[in-house]
């Protein structure tokens, strides 16, 4: 049942050159937006930021396999690139960082906790794994309504698989064969907790067996491998053949958040060991090696992305904070509890 997608998957895909360039752009956009958060935090302009360096290939690959306007995404906080990849505006990322009134959560949510119903991006909380049953419920609705050709993509980290709610949700999905893909972004760490303290299983895909589910292990540092794996898993779901558990191996290059300092719990040697796998230069190399982009093209792309990020930063920063009275909106439909 457990299947591996070969990596690098050169020549084994159907992606157009445009699409490949789009994927690289998404990766740069993610990294640039990430960096912007850290910069703004250092400048004291925002109190908190969170990066996903090392997850870019997962996000670009998964976004490429996602059917916009059809599929539904139920992500977690480490999915900036994936959310942008399915159509979220970079401006929305900055509005979230700056907690401006125009942010879709009205400046309520922590950065990186997006919502966008129009895009099929389900609102989620910071509570680890609490979104997984919601994703399953959403997939159940697709099945109940016999909506062929739609699927839910639900993501989470390696640590998240320890939660009881994760277990209950996967089990429910497997029993009802709902159209869903569970994508574990395995970056080896949950804040300071290494995988060896998180589970005794050899691989996260091993967990699928106990739910009677097919599983797939992929190189999460290769966007094409991710694309191929996700496409297959999503197609299976869309065709009514039920859920798949996908494990994408990646690495968290940064500290957990700006509140964390990873030097307190992992060696620089370990981080350096993973550096050569960094998906961005690796994918650039692939594109230049295969004549799809030149070094100059890539430089131009980076400049263009930076300009866009600069632009949305300025625009977001200039926008107003939510008004204090907004605190009382949307507790319930209509007014706030009138008796209080």
């Amino acid at each position: 049942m457990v299947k591996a997608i070969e990596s690098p998957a050169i020549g084994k895909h159907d992606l157009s050159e445009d699409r490949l360039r789009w994927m690289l752009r998404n990766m740069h956009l993610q990294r640039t937006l990430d960096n912007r958060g850290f910069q703004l935090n250092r400048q004291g302009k925002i109190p908190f930021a969170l990066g996903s360096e090392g997850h870019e290939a997962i996000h670009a690959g998964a976004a490429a396999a996602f059917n916009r306007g059809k599929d539904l995404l139920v992500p977690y906080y480490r999915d900036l690139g994936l959310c942008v990849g399915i159509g979220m505006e970079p401006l929305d990322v900055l509005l979230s960082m700056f907690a401006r009134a125009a942010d879709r959560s009205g400046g309520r949510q922590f950065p990186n906790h997006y919502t966008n119903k129009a895009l099929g991006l389900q609102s989620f909380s910071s509570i680890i794994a609490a979104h997984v049953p919601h994703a399953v419920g959403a997939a159940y609705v697709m099945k109940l309504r016999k909506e062929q050709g739609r699927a839910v993509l639900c993501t989470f980290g390696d640590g998240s698989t320890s939660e009881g709610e994760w277990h209950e949700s996967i089990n429910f999905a497997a029993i009802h064969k709902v159209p869903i893909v569970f994508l574990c972004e395995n970056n080896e760490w949950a804040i300071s907790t290494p995988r060896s303290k998180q589970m005794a299983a050899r691989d996260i895909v091993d967990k699928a067996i106990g739910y009677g589910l097919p599983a797939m292990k992929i190189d999460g540092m290769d966007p094409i491998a991710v694309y191929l794996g996700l496409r297959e898993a999503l197609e299976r779901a869309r065709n009514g053949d039920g859920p798949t558990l996908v494990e994408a191996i990646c690495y968290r290059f940064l500290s957990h958040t700006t509140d964390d300092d990873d030097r307190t719990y992992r060696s620089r040697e370990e981080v350096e060991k993973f550096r050569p796998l960094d998906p961005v230069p690796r994918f650039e190399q692939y594109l230049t090696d295969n004549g799809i982009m030149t070094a100059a093209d890539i430089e131009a792309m980076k400049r263009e992305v930076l300009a866009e990020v600069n632009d949305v930063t300025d625009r977001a920063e200039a926008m107003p904070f939510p008004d204090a009275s907004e605190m009382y909106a949307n507790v319930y439909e209509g007014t706030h509890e009138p008796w209080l």
Partner: protein
Amino acid sequence: MAVATSGTTTMNNVEAVRHTLYEALKADDRTLILGEDVGARGNVFLITKGFIEEFGPERIIDTPLAEASIAGVAIGMAMEGLRPIAEIQFADFIYPAFNQIVGEAAKTRYRSNGDYTCPLVIRTPYGGGIRGALSHSVSIEALFYHVPGLKIVAPSFPADMKGLLNAAIDDPDPVLFLEHKKTYRLVKGEVPQGHYTIPIGKADVKREGDRLTVVSYGFYIHQALEAAAQLAGEGMDVEVIDLRSIRPMDRTTILASVRKTRKLLIIHEDNKFGGIGAEISAMVVEDAFFDLDAPIRRLCGPDVPAMGYALSLEEAFMIPVPRMAEAMREMVNF
């Protein structure tokens, strides 16, 4: 009460809930029921008996034994446009779903600033007096009523069951629907035919009087009415308010009554410390302090973790009608 009906039917509370669920399933294909043993078994109180045959296993879902996912999957369904009616087999088993209810359902609309909503009903039988022992008897309202974003109703007359369950299903926000299991077959009443709703957040004066206001709900509202009837025989007219909704709470009705009677007795089965009665008392003191002629009194369950299985322990926990009547007399004569 928006009633469009020709007549009424006599039902007990089980029948009222069953009838209302059935009508909802018939009327709106966005509704479905999920919970443990709600299918072939028809729920442990036979409330959903026969539903799976009529509506099929996709709308009457026998879930795995896992309450967090019952609530959590229902939330996901509600976020995507259904009107799921989740069941927790006994209220005592709702604790594993606490995170989903309090952390997720109650915050869905708020955290997304209205982008997503969570029109979900969670039904569960609660309360004791049925030899349910430590884990089939608890009251849970006070563990949830502090949570903004949630609504909680606890009707205990068949007509209220129907009207409030319909309102809960129609409600665009998550509603915890508490059914006192001791009233299930014990309490019968007339239920209007046809579809109607009773607004969530409105208490009901079940008996008028001017000497004392009694606020109660659940099984005890029936006992309180019995006690009040006794007092009426003794020439003391006590006003008895059935709270029905716990959040939102009907401050207006309670205050109007207290301003009239100038005395307030709160009766509930749940433990006293931090129970619903605390908020009712605090609310009334805030707004009607100078209208009170006596200290507000709470007659509540003892502050012990649960009621025991032995009849003697269960009886020690529950408050019988004579004790209620005695407390009312004391208050009237204060």
